[in-house]
């Protein structure tokens, strides 16, 4: 899906994730700021095998380098709360290990195309920071993702590539099947009167992070939840 056309020398800004409201808003905002924004993800996309991920990037980017990678993907149903004792091996893999594998493959595929001075933003659920009952498997995946982003920031900084994390309330990442969580409530929602975390606000932050005004930021985690969670 292409959201903005520009000259062929312009690097692509790749947004990885199912077409959730958040992903759509990030694509829209990147496009409106002059990025050549393309998306990877959704039904029919297989991000669990190196060759498949490579094909996704080739199809989305063609011969373009990648200037921006935004990863905001979770498998359908992964955000549905489930006690750890109620998970079977398949459920564990869906909610935890498959997320880590696909994120790793996306980062590796993107790295092969990343332009000097590029920027990577991982949008991950804030449940990994303080933990969340019923979402243990997903929280484990999210913290592994965040660790991956830190490693990438350390290793790719020499090439001018920055890698940061935006930590958001899990409801912003869940798909439409995650009805138990809701989009306006949940354990990390702010109290009445506090600023809410919205898809628009998070997309703003993502665009800020990939822009020159954030050139000194890398390896950071910004918590975008309206102040519900204040990490030490």
């Amino acid at each position, binding site marked *: 899906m292409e959201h903005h056309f520009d000259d062929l020398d312009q690097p692509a800004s790749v947004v990885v994730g199912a077409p959730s409201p958040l992903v759509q808003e990030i694509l829209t905002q990147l496009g409106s700021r002059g990025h050549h924004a393309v998306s990877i993800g959704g039904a029919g996309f297989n991000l669990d095998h*190196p060759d498949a991920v490579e094909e996704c990037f080739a199809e989305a980017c063609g011969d373009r380098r990648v200037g921006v990678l935004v990863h905001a993907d979770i498998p359908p149903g992964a955000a549905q709360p489930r*006690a*750890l*004792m109620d*998970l079977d*091996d398949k459920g*564990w893999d869906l909610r*935890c*290990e498959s997320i*880590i*594998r696909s994120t*790793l*493959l996306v*980062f*590796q595929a993107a*790295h*092969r195309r990343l332009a000097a001075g590029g920027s990577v933003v991982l949008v991950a659920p804030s*449940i*990994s920071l*303080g*933990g*969340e*009952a*019923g*979402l*243990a*498997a997903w*929280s*484990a*995946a*999210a*913290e*592994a993702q*965040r*660790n*991956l982003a*830190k*490693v*990438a*920031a*350390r*290793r790719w900084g020499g090439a001018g590539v920055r890698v940061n994390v935006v930590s958001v309330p899990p409801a912003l990442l869940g798909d439409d099947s995650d009805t138990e969580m809701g989009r306006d409530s949940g354990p990390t929602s702010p109290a009445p009167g506090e600023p809410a975390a919205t898809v628009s606000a998070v997309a703003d932050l993502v665009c800020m992070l990939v822009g020159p005004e954030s050139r000194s930021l890398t*390896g950071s985690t910004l918590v975008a939840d309206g102040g519900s969670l204040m990490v*030490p």
Partner: protein
Amino acid sequence: MTAPLKDKLLKDKLLKDKLLKDKLLKDKVVLVTGAGGGVGRGIALACAAAGAEVVVTARGASGDETTEMIRAKGGSAHAVRCDVTDRDDVERSVAEALRVYGGLDAMVHNATSRESSQPHALEDASLELWEAHASVSVRGSFHCAQASFGALVETGGTLILLTSPAGIEGSATLPFYGMSKAAQRALVKSLALEWGPSGVRVNGLAPLARTEALDRAFEADETLEARIRSLVPLGRIGEPTVDVGYVAAFLVSDWANYVSGQTLVVSGGRFTLL
């Protein structure tokens, strides 16, 4: 032996005498995975010294050696072969703890992949290598948690996952190790919240410790030990039993009854950012 280490070992003797005298872990049953060497063996020895009955699990025969070491010092231990990547193995180990000792107070998941100390590059490391890490540390934690929960509820027990500072700050040279340890750290937090109402505590332990693998690395690089020691404010690398094992014993003990959801970093001051 350096003077600071001599002092430490003297203090350790005093501490061990006190632990033995007080029997901090008297009547506690502790299962330790990967207890055939290194930190796992250190935890098993420390818990036994504090009076616990220890189920020593390891993939191979090295667990028998740890068991003999405990018995030689008058402790109680039972060896079980266990590959934590195999759910049946883990369930059988817990069943052995119940059969031999009648309960389980602590599940300590320490086992790590044999690949854990092999440097690799994030950009081109294979999924097969990730699987080697994940199957032991990440999926192994899942297996240990599910297999032990019922028994831990019965005793008001505790789950302890061995993680690492690399799981907090990331490792440029061991990225998969750090990622798998990070996953365990979040699992600690979430399970502490999920299991707290059942009376089960969940904590993490992130050590910097001298293990057989580290010794081999020192032999391969004569300057490595000095370089690492220079980064540790206390000036030495942790010893698996006296520096790490006793902290694990504390977390198992009733002294830590109100501690849950935490990752204790045991690194001689090397890691202070949390």
